[in-house]
């Protein structure tokens, strides 16, 4: 077994993350204004409000998306809201269903009465607009193949008018379309839970008020978990996150130390 320098770098990172995860220390985080706003929004909705969660992400960003989605789902279920799940990217479909089912079980919620998952619809812009006219026509049956009308919680929900808010859970630009089509044209309140890399993209929408609230990245998830007093992978990941960060800084410094030492040696020769 021949190890090169890169193997040592890899091994170091692996150990740093492994150890900091095994320690299971919750580093407290300072809650940002954005996260507080999202929390207050869901907290202040009257129980029984209808929220639509749209899983607009691909499977590979799951590590970042999952803690965000779980935190929001837990908060919404704990406050007794009714949830409609949809997916506008194919890969979000199975994931969305599984997450809702998992958290639904935690809170003793019943499928069809407290929450429903309608599944995937291609052509997201068309889907967003057509839900503004009729959700039933857009999704005649749910993800499991049951007719729309067989799900008691959906009775009386025709379009966005009966929905108190949409939360787009996204790793890309789909949230823009929610804002521009569902939000601007049908007046539904759009919020978002997005990957950290997208936060700066959506800041202008938040500032202009076109988007109601937003949380972003693992850090956002950790803050949210702190607010709802329910630790999750967001908070658990913060120590590992910080440790990995410090590790990368050390690697950059180590690289330079090695470089300048070698240069010195080279000169002496």
């Amino acid at each position: 077994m021949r190890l090169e320098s890169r193997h040592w770098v890899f091994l170091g990172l692996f150990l740093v993350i492994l150890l900091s995860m095994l320690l299971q220390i919750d580093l407290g985080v300072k809650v940002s204004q954005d996260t507080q706003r999202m929390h207050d929004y869901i907290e202040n909705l009257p129980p029984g409000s209808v929220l639509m969660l749209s899983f607009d992400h691909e499977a590979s960003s799951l590590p970042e998306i999952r803690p965000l989605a779980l935190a929001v789902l837990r908060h919404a279920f704990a406050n007794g809201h009714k949830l409609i799940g949809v997916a506008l990217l194919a890969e979000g479909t199975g994931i969305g269903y599984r997450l809702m089912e998992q958290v639904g079980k935690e809170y003793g919620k019943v499928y069809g009465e407290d929450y429903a998952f309608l599944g995937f619809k291609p052509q997201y812009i068309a889907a967003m607009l057509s839900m503004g006219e009729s959700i039933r026509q857009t999704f005649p049956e749910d993800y499991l193949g049951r007719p729309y009308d067989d799900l008691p919680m959906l009775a009386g929900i025709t379009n966005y008018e009966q929905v108190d808010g949409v939360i787009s859970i996204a790793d890309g630009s789909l949230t823009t379309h929610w804002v521009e089509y569902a939000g601007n044209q049908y007046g539904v309140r759009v919020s978002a839970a997005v990957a950290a890399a997208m936060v700066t993209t959506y800041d202008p929408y938040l500032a202009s008020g076109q988007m109601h609230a937003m949380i972003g990245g693992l850090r956002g998830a950790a803050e949210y978990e702190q607010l709802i007093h329910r630790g999750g992978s967001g908070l658990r990941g913060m120590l590992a996150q910080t440790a990995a960060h410090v590790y990368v800084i050390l690697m950059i410094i180590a690289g330079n130390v090695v470089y300048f030492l070698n240069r010195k040696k080279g000169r002496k020769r």
Partner: protein
Amino acid sequence: MDIGTIVAGILTLAILTFLYRDNPIYKMAESILIGVAIGYILVITWTNSLMALLFKPLFGAGEGWLLVPLLLGLMMFGRLFKKTSLLSRIPIGVLIGSGAGVAIPAMLEARTLRQLSATVSPVIADGSLDISMLVILVGVLSTLIYFYFSREQVGWWGKTAKLGTYFLMIFFGTTFGYTVMSRMSTFIGRMEFLLTDFLRIIN
């Protein structure tokens, strides 16, 4: 533990072995991934594009105009045989042409004009110098000069272009540093799966 978690756990470990070096376990996982991913996209494209956009409206609702994209699509099959392979140039021409038609105004609007107008801001406001605005102006101009190809980079022009490269480096360093966080979280997420769901070391 359900069988899905076991399969997912084993495959996760198989991919991670690449970090040591290429090996038969990784190679097998990679081959399965590529195969399954092609199978998946075939099914999804069949249902979401061909059935939903083409066959259902064409044969179900009789929307005759769809014969045009159907024909264009079928021409792509020409590639499968030597004699007909030239036919595929027509649908490719449609893609490239319409792509260019979209790109001209879109690039002007989003990439050029909007970036330009976002840069315009008073450098001297209320009699005092706005240093940030001045930095932005100098940064944009010097970097544009770096990208100017029709003049040798010598003299003051060369020095300005060099200043542009400094701005570029600040941007690259910043972006790298800014992105590290999200890259780390993807691995932390996988570790979380391994440690809680698969190995059940932490809960």
